[in-house]
């Protein structure tokens, strides 16, 4: 689904991404974790074109991203939903209006384009938005102003906006960094539920390894199709595995938990569960399980 090949990016002469390779399969849920400043945001924003890499190639759904051509970039973005740490909602308007904005990319032609630009959406689209609000469990707030909502509720609205795009891929940049622990785990659960039930590929940046361990560990669906993973007694990796990505190049070997905390210049790639691929599984080191 997403393939990043040998990506380099410098800011003011400082190398932030230095030959990063990453591939994420269709339907996978992947968390990128690492210390702040390690380039997680830069990497994820290169996938929907808000950062233009100095070199390297990104393909989404088999199609290479053309950073120069605005129209083709827009077409790529239509398929990619983005979720932010600070929700990035229009605070003064209603929940429903914010969710409707997610449909704009799809409504970019003919009558749909004109009416959406004026501010009118078809009954069908509105119905869809309400349905999605129901799915993310915030239907009762549809007509409230966003600035009246709590952080967790705002993030649900932002997720609904992304779903309104009918995306194939969801990117999330620290979606729980501004939320309390309880809300954080609810939002992570919601993202994983979307990944599972709708089959939308998920790449999420998470800041703290702890929250990944706790939340991903707890919300792991015990009865996934990936039955080979349900080694019943191992806490986290029973259907999850972890690997980390070296900024200097490629996917590295498995490490002990303690290594995560020492890590200076690493981005960790956490694969909480598998549905379509198993190739990481063979690499799960026994030492890693011990450490958890």
């Amino acid at each position, binding site marked *: 689904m997403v393939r990043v090949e040998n990506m380099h990016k410098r800011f003011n002469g400082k190398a932030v991404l230095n030959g990063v390779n990453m591939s994420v399969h269709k339907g996978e849920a992947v968390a990128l974790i690492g210390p702040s400043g390690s380039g997680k945001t830069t990497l994820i924003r290169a996938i929907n074109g808000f950062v233009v890499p100095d070199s390297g190639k990104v393909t989404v759904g088999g199609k290479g991203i053309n950073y120069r051509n605005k129209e083709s970039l827009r077409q790529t*973005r239509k*398929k990619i939903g983005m979720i932010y740490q600070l929700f990035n909602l229009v605070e003064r308007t209603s929940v429903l209006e914010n969710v409707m904005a997610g449909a704009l990319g*799809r409504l*970019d032609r003919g009558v749909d384009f004109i009416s959406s630009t004026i501010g009118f959406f078809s009954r069908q689209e509105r119905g869809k938005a309400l349905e999605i609000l129901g799915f993310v469990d915030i239907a009762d707030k549809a007509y409230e102003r966003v600035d009246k909502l709590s952080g967790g509720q705002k993030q649900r609205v932002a997720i609904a906006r992304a779903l309104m*795009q009918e995306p194939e891929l969801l990117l999330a940049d620290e979606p729980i960094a501004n939320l309390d622990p309880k809300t954080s785990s609810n939002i992570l659960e919601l993202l994983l539920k979307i990944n599972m039930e709708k089959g939308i590929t998920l790449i999420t940046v998470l800041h703290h390894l702890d929250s990944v361990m706790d939340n991903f560990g707890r919300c792991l669906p015990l009865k996934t199709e990936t039955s080979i993973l349900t080694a019943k007694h191992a806490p986290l990796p029973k259907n999850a595995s972890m690997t980390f990505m070296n900024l200097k190049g490629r996917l590295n070997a498995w490490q002990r938990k303690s290594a995560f905390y020492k890590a200076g210049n690493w981005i960790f790639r956490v694969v909480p569960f598998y549905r379509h691929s198993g190739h990481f599984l063979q690499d799960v080191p026994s030492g890693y399980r011990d450490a958890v």
Partner: protein
Amino acid sequence: MSHLDIGTLFEGFASSISLVREMFPPDFARWEKIPPLAMETIAIGFWGTILGMLISFPLGFLSAKNTSGNIVLYNISKGLVNFLRAIPDILYALLFVVSIGMGAVAGVLALAFSTIGLLSKFYAEAVESIDTKPVEAIEATGGHSLSVIRHAVLPQVFPLFMGYNLYALDHNIRAAMMLGLVGAGGLGVELFFQMRSFNYQKAAAIIVIMFVIITVIDRVSAYLRNRIIEGTFLNKQNRIKDFSLLSIIFIITILSLYFIPVSFKEIAHGMPRIWEFLNSMFPPDFSDISSYVKLMAETVGMGISGTFIAVLISVPMGMLSARNMAHRPLIYNLMKEIANFFRAMPELMFALIFVAAVGLGPFAGVLVIAIHTAGFLGKFYAEAIENVDPKPVEAVEATGARFIQRIRHSVFPQVMPLFNSYNLYILDRNIRASTVMGIVGAGGIGFDLVMSMKLFEYQKTATLILIILFTVMLVDWLSSYLRKKVV
């Protein structure tokens, strides 16, 4: 007003542009007449402001709830301030010219009065919003109420007062440029004369001088205001620069006195004449009231249509002057300068030009209001757009929306409440402005006002002023009520 349509509107702008072409190149011959008039203009602006400041100082405290001390006094002062504020400066100038005669003194007095209305209200608002803790502390020591004001209130409001004073100065310099239209001194007289004699190139030279003076004072005042707000005024790094600026201002103020032929004898002589004049206005003559009301309606219509056109011009103009929309410095800086020119030049100057271009009548007035306030709104809109939260804008871009959809669904909802509030504010000021357009024949009730004075029908003048006052106060109240609702 019913014949106002897109066609005539474009024709109007087109003939104005061809008139502006005739103004080039500006003709600076007979230059020796200009400097004294320019100095007189500056003198009127400065001394009107100073006089106004001196009177506003006690009046501001008297009309502030927390320092007035006496509820009756408070209500009287507040009523007086609101009354003074509702009368446009050029109208004061007319009244003084008629009662004490032509000249710079009438101009200074006119600006002093309009400044009192402006500053007393600002002062009172500043005083009402102070921190009450230091006040209580001084009261607890058993201090006299004047010493409370001196030691607890004044230190808190002083920087604000200074900022307002500079704003008033800025405002008054512009106003002083146009007082000459009614004979109250300054460059306006010469501009009026040259426009009347079709010497458009000479008129252009005067406009250039006006623009230079306005721009210099605008920049200096903005610089000092920023310093005062930041609290860096006269601090170590800027002491020499700030001090020399202050000295220059002081020297100009004193020197400019030379250009106001003040004769205290004359003023003393003029005072009873003001009284006589006011007396001759009573009782107001209401016989023509229905035609006056109709005129007032036309005047309000001018303000509304002018505002409407200004909004239409300002939306694209504001977008093009916003750094985060236009992206190219050449475009947004150029657009900002254009907006600034329209905003900075006095609207009666535009009125002279438009009347020359499209003829007498309300159409010229509508164009003036549209152009002048498109400058204001263009600037305000651009600032609002530059201050939008970029986060939702990016989020909507990330959905693959087109540019115009992004503007509509992420920028628009953020700036709309601000735009509405600016529009209401501008509508309010434009209805005020439309009442004086008639002074140069650009339509509305101002023309009849001037005529009634020229014909010594002061009782009719009184009625017209009452109608203007009533409308202006009503619109002011309505606008501030609505503004509270939209924000």
